[in-house]
């Protein structure tokens, strides 16, 4: 009987191409993205048609979560150090080096100034369990939010006019809370604010949409 010759095919596949693609994608993601900022609370921002980008530096960011707790954060470690040192001397908080360091490298803070020492000595989880992350009080009586704005300004040094004040609030944040914050800014004679939003397409047939169609790159 003649032997039926079965061609033996290797089950090995050439992985090189796949490897190339994988690393190409990897490189793309490494270069095109940046790490999610560490945030104490999750905030779902509303969407708007504005295309202005949030600047990277010279930003005082006030995060408001859905219960109306306010958290403060600022870029730049030297600035943060100056801010916490100023606060420490002004309010006689008696912070030690470790607690200040915690503030400088940490993310947003949201506590009453009198609780700040304890707040900074704890880790993120401990703060939650201790119930210290109550947010910065916004009522005008003790004016702590105003104090944060002032010290944030003072820490900016020379480029004060470049500073942007951003408010990042949750969809469900009640309006009176927002109004309190806006009023605080108003009292500080800060008129230009930025609200952090997601991008949304302008609805068809509206003035903004027509402008986008006509202008192409025009905002």
């Amino acid at each position, binding site marked *: 009987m003649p032997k039926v010759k079965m061609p033996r095919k290797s089950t090995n596949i*050439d992985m090189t191409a796949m490897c190339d693609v994988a690393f190409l994608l990897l490189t793309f993601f490494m270069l095109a993205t940046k790490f*999610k900022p560490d945030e104490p609370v999750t905030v779902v921002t*509303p969407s708007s048609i504005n295309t202005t980008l949030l600047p990277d530096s010279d930003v005082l960011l006030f995060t408001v979560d859905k219960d109306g707790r306010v958290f403060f954060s600022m870029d730049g470690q030297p600035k943060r150090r100056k801010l916490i040192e100023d606060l420490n001397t002004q309010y006689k908080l008696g912070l030690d080096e470790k607690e200040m360091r915690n503030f400088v490298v940490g993310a947003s803070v949201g506590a009453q100034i009198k609780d700040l020492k304890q707040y900074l000595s704890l880790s993120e989880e401990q703060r939650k369990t201790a119930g210290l992350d109550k947010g910065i009080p916004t009522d005008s009586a003790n004016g702590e939010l105003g104090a944060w704005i002032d010290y944030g300004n003072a820490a900016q040094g020379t480029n004060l006019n470049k500073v942007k004040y951003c408010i990042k609030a949750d969809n469900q944040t*009640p*309006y009176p809370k927002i109004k309190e914050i806006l009023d605080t800014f108003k009292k500080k004679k800060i008129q230009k604010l930025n609200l952090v939003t997601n991008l949304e397409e302008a609805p068809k047939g509206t003035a903004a949409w027509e402008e986008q169609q006509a202008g192409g790159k025009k905002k």
Partner: protein
Amino acid sequence: MAEMDTSSSGGKGKKHGGTKSKKQSTRVDMTPMVDLGFLLITFFMLTTTMSKPKTMDLIMPKDTENEKDQNKVKESTALTILLGKDNRVYYYEGLAQDPNASANPDFFKATSFANTGGIRDEIIKKRDEVARLRNAKGEPEDVVVIIKADDQANYKNFVDILDEMAINRIQRYATVDISDQDKKWIQSTEAANGVSSTPTPPAK
């Protein structure tokens, strides 16, 4: 190419005849490398953000103590929008300085943030209506939108209505504290419509 197959191709090499050096395959198993690559991709995809958040400029007016410094808004060019709870929107034309206005049942109207038949259509209608009016110099008038948010409104409503201003290119708008009269109207409208019900379709 990256891969070279130099393994001997079996017994067909009779032409060479002579010395047969044993050739080792240079083939490398790429599977772990691909695994690692995709693992890293997954990691970067999950831990990073692609797009930077956008911001909306909000310019607050200065507090003016002096009556004279305040801008007066004409009744005919104004549109007042009220933000209520559960994403409800109410609006009326003018400033409601005339107390008799509320006597008219069609004066105070409810609508929604819907894309069609919502507040946007009303803003556009009012804008185009006002654009036909002429001021003393014979120039077209600008509509002035007064935004009043109730205590029950949330931040999303506030941003949405500011966004409507941007969408419809309304140049002049202001956020104003809500008055007791407005609150009363909201309450009575809610009571009339049944508070738990969905927003009523806009009056035509």
